[in-house]
């Protein structure tokens, strides 16, 4: 069996591998880690997320969830009040009471996450201990975990990282001497997960697990024979926790766009010694469909200038996709945090000289954006309408988290997210 070698041309230069990153500190317009609950609870069907926090946390979740779009969400807030701050012993009793009420109301819960927030972190409420105590009280029916989604420690997608990292110790051990298995880490929409599962199966990679699993009982196993492929760029702690369990991390670009998807799949194929011909047979149809879907959008986007505000840490892979597959010019690529190691394969594909900004000082960034007058601005919900009112064309970055964008079949959809605002501006005559 001949292992598949990288059939794609290597990037001509080192791209932005060693490029200096501009660090910025100041007011940030970024969601906190609690917000990731909004997609995590949909993916993990028997999990419930209980934020231990303030009224602000409850209000944030409600606003971020688009004000009540779900019949009954699988998240809630235990709002701390004056008397909880007075004595911590009381706060623990209160927490026990709230959890008991919740579990009584929702007997379908199997995994309960106690999610730390800014206030619970600042008063040093020990949720780890509380989770241990509650876990002993409710096991085996309900397992209780803990992580922090606080805004003083995490931004937006880092909440998912913290949640998945908290699950890693629950993953069963790989049997000793097990054949190599593939683990895809990072929340993917079900439709995308199924597509990837089929592609891997067709390549002959039989043992594939996904983290998170829809149900706690279905968590995949992990061990020294596990090869981990990240489906999201922001899984720093999760990757570390998996490595501590003996798994080894594969370095790949993310599966966005036709090229990204091929390279991502290729990385797995190489690790699992998939014959080159088989890999090409399996991926050819999807890659061709993606190329065709992108063609239409390339006409609309090529040569247009795009400015990305920091939001989800998806900015670097998205910028790579917009530049390489759609011919857009990158004015500025902002990211709340840049993990050089996980993004090594992405950075190598960015054009040299790309302005990458880590962190944020929103007023200064807005000044730069106005100065540059880009054709398209990718930004958070708070900034979009004000920028539209100034005459700019915007795309909500949050859609990159809530829409299926990964894989061949979604490449066209992803491109459409960026052509639609431009088409709209062109059509409107009011």
């Amino acid at each position, binding site marked *: 069996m001949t292992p598949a070698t990288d059939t794609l041309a290597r990037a001509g230069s080192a791209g932005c591998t060693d490029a200096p990153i501009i660090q910025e500190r100041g*007011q*940030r317009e970024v969601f906190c880690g609690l917000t990731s609950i909004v997609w995590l609870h949909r993916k993990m069907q028997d999990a419930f997320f209980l934020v*231990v926090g303030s009224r*602000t946390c409850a*209000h944030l979740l409600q606003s971020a969830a688009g004000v009540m779009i779900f019949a009954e969400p699988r998240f*809630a807030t235990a709002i701390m009040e004056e008397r909880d701050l007075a004595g911590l012993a009381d706060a623990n009793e209160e927490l026990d009471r709230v959890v008991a009420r919740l579990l009584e109301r929702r007997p379908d819960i199997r995994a309960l996450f106690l999610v730390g927030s800014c206030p619970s972190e600042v008063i040093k409420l020990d949720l780890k201990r509380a989770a241990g105590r509650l876990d002993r009280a409710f096991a085996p029916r309900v397992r209780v975990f803990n992580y922090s989604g606080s*805004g*003083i420690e995490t931004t937006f997608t880092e909440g998912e990282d913290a949640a998945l990292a908290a699950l890693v110790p629950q993953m069963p051990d790989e049997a000793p001497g097990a054949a190599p298995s593939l683990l895809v880490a990072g929340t993917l929409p079900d439709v995308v997960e199924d597509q990837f599962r089929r592609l891997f199966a067709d390549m002959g990679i039989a043992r594939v697990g996904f983290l998170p699993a829809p149900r706690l009982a279905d968590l995949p196993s992990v061990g020294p024979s596990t090869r981990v492929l990240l489906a999201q760029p922001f899984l720093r702690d999760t990757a570390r926790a998996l490595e501590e369990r003996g798994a080894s991390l594969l370095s790949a670009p993310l599966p966005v766009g036709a090229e990204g998807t091929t390279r991502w799949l290729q990385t797995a194929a190489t690790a699992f010694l998939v014959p080159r011909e088989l890999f090409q047979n399996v991926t050819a149809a999807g890659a061709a469909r993606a190329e065709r879907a992108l063609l239409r959008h390339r006409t609309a986007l090529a040569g247009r200038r795009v400015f990305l505000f920091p939001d989800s840490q998806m900015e670097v892979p998205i910028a790579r996709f917009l530049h390489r597959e759609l011919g857009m010019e990158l004015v500025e690529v902002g990211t709340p945090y840049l993990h050089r190691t996980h993004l090594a394969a992405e950075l190598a594909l960015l054009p040299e000289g790309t302005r990458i900004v880590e962190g944020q000082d929103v007023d200064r960034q807005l000044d730069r954006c106005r100065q540059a007058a880009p054709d398209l601005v990718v930004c958070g919900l708070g900034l979009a309408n004000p920028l539209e009112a100034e005459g700019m064309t915007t795309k909500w970055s949050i859609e990159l988290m809530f829409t299926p964008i990964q894989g061949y079949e979604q490449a066209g959809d992803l491109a459409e997210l960026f052509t639609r605002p431009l088409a709209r501006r062109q059509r409107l005559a009011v």
Partner: protein
Amino acid sequence: MQLTLWTYEGPPHVGAMRIATAMEGLHYVLHAPQGDTYADLLFTMIERRDRRPPVTYTTFQARDLGGDTAGLFQEACRSAYERFKPEAMIVGASCTAELIQDDPGGLAARLGLPIPVIPLELPAYQKKENWGAGETFYRLVRALARPRETATSIGRPRCNLLGPTALGFRHRDDVMEVTRILAALGVDVNVVAPLGARPSDIARLGDADFNVVLYPEVAEPAARYLEKTFGQPAVRTVPIGVGATRDFIAEVARIAGVSPVLADAASRLPWYSRSVDSTYLTGKRVYVFGDATHALAAARVATSELAFDLVGLGTYSREFGREIRAEAARHGIEALVTDDYLDVEAEISALRPELILGTQMERHIAKRLGIPCAVISAPIHVQDFPARHSPQMGFEGANVLFDTWVHPLMMGLEEHLLHMFRGDFEFNDRTGSHLGKTHMPAAAEAAVAEPVLASPPSQPGPTAWDAVAEQELRKIPFFVRGKARRNTERFALERGITTITLDTLYDAKAHFGR
């Protein structure tokens, strides 16, 4: 700790943001961790504002906590002043910053900025959004308002309109409507605040002869202060509905010394309510929940202007619990004063109203239970900021109430016909009302029949329907069938009847019939 699935009010600093965002030339510097900036989207997305709210957040992170968060705050104040050059500034802390005790007021004072800097104390673990808005407005008025320079007023009487804010339920439209009524009465508006006012406008509140309290939740503390300090009386009737608008006009006329000369012809509600098509509205069982101002108004309009029965009344505005309880007592019911969504859900499940007048939360409950609903109060959604003029106050506001409360129901003749011709083949489950959502497929009907209760029913009884009774049940119009099924099963359960027959069905109907 309070278990909260959805919350009726945000934290008090969001109330302060509603004041700052409503005004011009005011800037709010908020000591807050990163993440609290989410509040911007309330204004730019839900209210669809075209500008960012005038708020600068310090957005401190964990690594700043050991260091100099106070310095961070001062730097944020200084650069916000430099960049935005406001006429005045308010400074305060969000819930997390309150815990680290940096004293924004003192820190800002030490900067010696050449503008008024007003510190806000908004206890985040005790108070909520509306209280925060009221307190912020009061602090601004206290700090900035000046007494009238000349002792007596000249010319037409003048008043201030107090209380409209950013992110308010139809505040913009209400202001327009009330201003129109006042103009017709010969009363001028001196200042509208906080909506659209500058700090320099707050300074001239004292020039008015009296104040109009449009939204007591926000305006009452400021109105009381102005009453005490400048001797300005306040009009406190909130003109929502035809009757309340008439009362409002009478009260304004008395205080302003003008003649109450407004014809009711301005409103179509009285005639629409009397028109024969509205007969079917009589005795419809309605449930009301919202902020105190809108809930009180809705109770009056629903009962005396639309002839509904009030089966439940509640508010999340605890500060107005007494008023709500008194109003409920007038209708022979007990008020629900709570900010616990689960309590409201449980009460609605138990009362089974035919119409809910509530907030976006109750709309949500209504959707689950298959009950028609209209939104009358915050918390709100982007759809509660319509493009058209859609006031709640004044005679035009009454027209809006008639339309929005009656449209979720079936029209009168339609409902009568469905009853009369229910045996006809056209009126089966697939035809029906103009309202798509009252089409209730079997699954949805079952969901209504077995309401989603907070906890499983205490005595689950094995009640079965015999074939004839089941057949008869199918003849009952789909929009009341769920209720009939549930009532019959409850009736059977209470009497230990295990198989429901035709007799059980009609016994139950007689028992529950109203």
